[in-house]
């Protein structure tokens, strides 16, 4: 591709600007970023690895213990349980969030005149802090004076119920975050050229056929991306369960990050917590890489089709 560019007049080889001394201004401009990046990201990342190989408290490092923490981790029922709870939460949220996001995007796309109101209604929760969601959810789910019980009847304490706690957290999360998915899918919808629909309409296609033949194929990659992004985001859940249920009842909503937090800050076992963090990172990184790879192969496939 570069060869072609070089043969046209448009090749710009981007030579250095100020003579050849571009290193200095670059260093100046990058210094602040590099500094905070090292101090507050790369450093801690390396430290997590290091910590996981030691026996440490929150403030002091004691002994180097190699892979002992990991050995414990593999056998730790509480850890695997927390992983299970995390995946349960993912299961409860990822698909509904994507489906609902798609429906909302389609509606906003359709009702052009009301679109900013509709969009606003769906997206507003997303810009709110988590505690607003948890406060309102907790109030609505109150056993005696909560509005949910007024509508549904009964006196159930939803968040204290082993079967309902996580689903309720999931529903609250869906209310809170669906706006982002809607936005992504809406952008995908708006990217579909109007001419495709016009041509199809001339060919006599209507309603659901239009959706199946034009909308869905164009939207499929975006939906795929949204699903994967949701999955990765759902694994990182912490605030909702911590605030609403404190990991209860009976630790049934204690997700992995919560477990890590408890290990580090309540039990002051930083080394073991770091091992949990590493395991957690491994899962997230694996999924993120998958998402990047899928995104690239989709782009290549699309480029190939258009070539």
């Amino acid at each position, binding site marked *: 591709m570069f060869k072609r560019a070089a043969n046209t007049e448009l090749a*710009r080889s981007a030579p250095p600007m100020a003579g050849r001394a571009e290193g200095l201004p670059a260093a100046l401009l990058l210094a602040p970023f590099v500094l905070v990046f090292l101090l507050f990201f790369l450093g801690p990342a390396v430290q997590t690895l290091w910590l996981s190989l030691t026996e440490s408290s929150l403030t002091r490092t004691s002994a180097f213990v190699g892979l002992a923490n990991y050995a414990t981790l593999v056998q730790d029922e509480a850890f695997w349980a927390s992983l299970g709870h995390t995946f349960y939460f993912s299961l409860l949220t990822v698909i509904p969030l994507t489906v609902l996001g798609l429906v909302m995007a389609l509606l906003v796309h359709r009702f052009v005149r009301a679109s900013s109101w509709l969009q606003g209604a769906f997206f507003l929760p997303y810009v709110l802090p988590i505690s607003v969601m948890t406060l309102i959810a907790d109030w609505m789910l109150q056993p005696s004076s909560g509005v949910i019980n007024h509508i549904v009847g009964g006196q159930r304490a939803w968040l204290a119920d082993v079967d309902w706690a996580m689903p309720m957290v999931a529903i609250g999360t869906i209310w809170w975050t669906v706006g982002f998915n809607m936005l992504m899918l809406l952008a995908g919808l708006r990217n579909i050229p109007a001419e495709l629909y016009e041509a199809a309409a001339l060919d006599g296609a209507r309603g659901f056929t239009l959706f199946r033949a034009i909308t869905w194929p164009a939207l499929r990659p975006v939906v795929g991306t949204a699903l994967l992004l949701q999955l990765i985001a759902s694994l990182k859940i912490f605030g909702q369960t911590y605030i609403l249920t404190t990991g209860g009842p009976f630790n049934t909503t204690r997700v992995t990050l919560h477990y890590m937090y408890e290990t580090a800050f309540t039990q002051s076992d930083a080394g073991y917590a770091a091992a949990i963090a590493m395991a957690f990172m491994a899962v997230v990184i694996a999924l993120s890489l998958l998402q990047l790879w899928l995104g690239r192969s989709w782009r290549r496939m699309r480029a190939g089709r258009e070539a």
Partner: protein
Amino acid sequence: MASVSLRGIRKRFHDNVVIKDIDLEIEDGEFVVFVGPSGCGKSTLLRIIAGLEDVSEGTLEIGGVVSNEIEPARRGIAMVFQSYALYPHMSVFENMGFALKLAKVPKAEIRARVERAAGILQIGHLLERKPKALSGGQRQRVAIGRAIVRKPEVFLFDEPLSNLDAALRGQTRVELARLHRELGSTMIYVTHDQVEAMTLGQKIVVLNGGRIEQVGSPFELYERPANRFVAGFLGSPRMNFFEATLVSAQARSATVELAHGVRVQVAADAARARPGDKVVLGVRPEHLQIVHTGEGGGIGASVALVEYLGDVTLVYAHADGGGDMVALKCDADTAPPAPGSRVTLAFPATRAFLFDAGDRAFTPGWADSAAAQGLREPMT
């Protein structure tokens, strides 16, 4: 001294050699045009002179100073970009004065220089406006004004007219010529349009595939093209080419045989070739004439298309020997032949060109006779 000298200039983009050994001398005060098809390297050459591209090999001298390593802003040059590159958030005045501000020129002098340049270009009333409030032609003047203000030794123009509509283009061409006369600076102008090249250039450099095909005045290039490329590049419609075989070569003329055994005479010195060699005959559309059949050797053709342009009529025909369509420029007053009819074409021997198998021109033999006929180089 505002001369520009290029010696052995070579430019590589990774493995691609884009400019291949260019040697060129540009005199102080000349208006030089780099012209050629897309991808020939003309813009790259200009950017090399500007300092926006590095030189892989060779020496670039501006005003007698070796400038390969000198920053663009310190080469004594100013450039007018194809897209004008006016800073969108600055007013016209600020755009024009930006370079001076960077050079810490006192405000009073900046104002004086900007106003003077604005006066020359008649944009004085636009100084407070932002670029987006200007028309294309106005923006272009601002771009030129920005260059003038810097009082450069050499002006560089990168296809400045290509974004203007046809009417504006013609008008601006005239203005640019006037500007050159007024300022007397060296100007290097890049274009793909041969009309601009012919009308503006004192010296034209025809480039193709990173090499110089020919350098000369418009007259020289048009009347004495050094090779088939230059011959076909200048002139519209393009020169007609016919495949032929050399029959015999005399001192000032040669006889060649075209398809169907048609033999014609060309006033060219083909001594360095041998009879039987493949050659190419070139005749410009304005020199091809329709003759009555039987008036001696002529090329048979059938008319395909007739275009009436008001001042001339263009006739396109398929010659008997095959090959590209032949174009004729005829006087609009005479009735043109009807499409589909058969015609015979002929041309004066002194107005034809001959090219060898390597596309190099055989020296035209008409030079003396042209002078004898009173044809002279136009004054520039």
